């Protein structure tokens, strides 16, 4: 198995590293004690081929679940769509979708009434994010388990824009804040 990109750290003048080989950690935002109403990565250079966001998240919604909202380049118009396949621990699983939406949804975040110390986890891939000839596609895997209940989600999303993704924003769907210790880590992945 090849080594996947061992990279040296370096001091850079911008907020992101300029090393563009392999799998590169770009920036991590960890929510502090005051919570966070939005998570934003801005000024993303078009230096890599794909992006990946690795998330653990919980919101302050007064419920056992919430969802996440993903937007690109501050676009809040109806330029998004998504499809999800999910399992809630019984039956045959289910599916849902949204077209002409104002965001890409990723569901099944834990919230204020969830079991303590449980955070949902997600890995979201944004393919060809800087390609100006393609609409942007996401692929996400995530969910939460709370010992006897839970949800696993497998989904995809689409942003109908050929613009390079230069920023992305994540907000809670129903809650007002992500809670302390929620973490959002952005990575760049370079092709050969």
């Amino acid at each position, binding site marked *: *198995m090849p080594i*996947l990109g061992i990279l040296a*750290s370096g001091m850079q003048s911008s907020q992101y590293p300029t090393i563009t080989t*392999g799998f590169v950690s770009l920036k991590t935002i960890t929510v502090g004690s005051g919570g966070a109403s939005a998570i934003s990565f801005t000024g993303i250079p078009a230096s890599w081929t794909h992006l990946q966001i*690795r998330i653990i998240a919980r919101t302050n919604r007064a419920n056992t679940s919430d969802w996440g909202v993903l937007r690109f380049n501050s676009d809040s118009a109806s330029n998004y769509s998504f499809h999800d396949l999910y399992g809630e621990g019984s039956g045959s699983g289910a599916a849902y979708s949204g077209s002409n939406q104002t965001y890409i949804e990723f569901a099944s975040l834990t919230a204020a009434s969830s079991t303590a*110390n449980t955070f949902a986890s997600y890995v979201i891939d944004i393919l060809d994010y800087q390609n100006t000839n393609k609409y942007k596609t996401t692929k996400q895997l995530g969910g*939460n388990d709370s010992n006897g209940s839970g949800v696993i989600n497998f989904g995809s999303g689409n942003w109908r824009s050929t613009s390079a993704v230069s920023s992305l924003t994540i907000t809670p769907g129903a809650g007002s804040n992500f809670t302390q210790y929620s973490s959002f*880590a952005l990575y760049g992945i370079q092709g050969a």
Partner: protein
Amino acid sequence: MAGAQTYEPIATQTLGSTAATVTFSSISAGYTDLVFVIRCGWAIINNAPLTLTFNSDTGTNYSYTRLLGNGSTASSDTSGTNSNIDIGYMPGTNGNGFGTIILNIMNYSNTTTYKTILDKWEGQASISTKQYVAAEVGLWRSTATINRIDLAFPSNLIASGSTFTLYGIKAA
């Protein structure tokens, strides 16, 4: 200011003979997430779930929720208060059958959160009713940093030729 970090291999184990367990110990707390890439099977013609425990904890602190497909039927199940996590039905090695597991262990060194795993697996068992592709989320109800992972089949041996590679992802 972010510095470039790594997605790097930590250790690989390839079984030269059958084994009851596979263990990764003394895992550094220096990464953010762990990724486990596994190809394995039973040492007999059958199928069974590969199980995982953390830090030698065999208490009933594990649970999972899954979405599965076997080629004709989709299903979902959940199981809680277990002494381990089933991370995938792996095939018996009649011929060269090995299943595949890609397991993300998120924020494994975070001492304020329980530990969540995200798992994709497939097992093309010789028994047609036990051939699955699946997505799974699992939970270890502990805030301890993960420093050891043990893998085992419940009542038999892991097949020779099975490979287990652990990677670390270090966030900025």
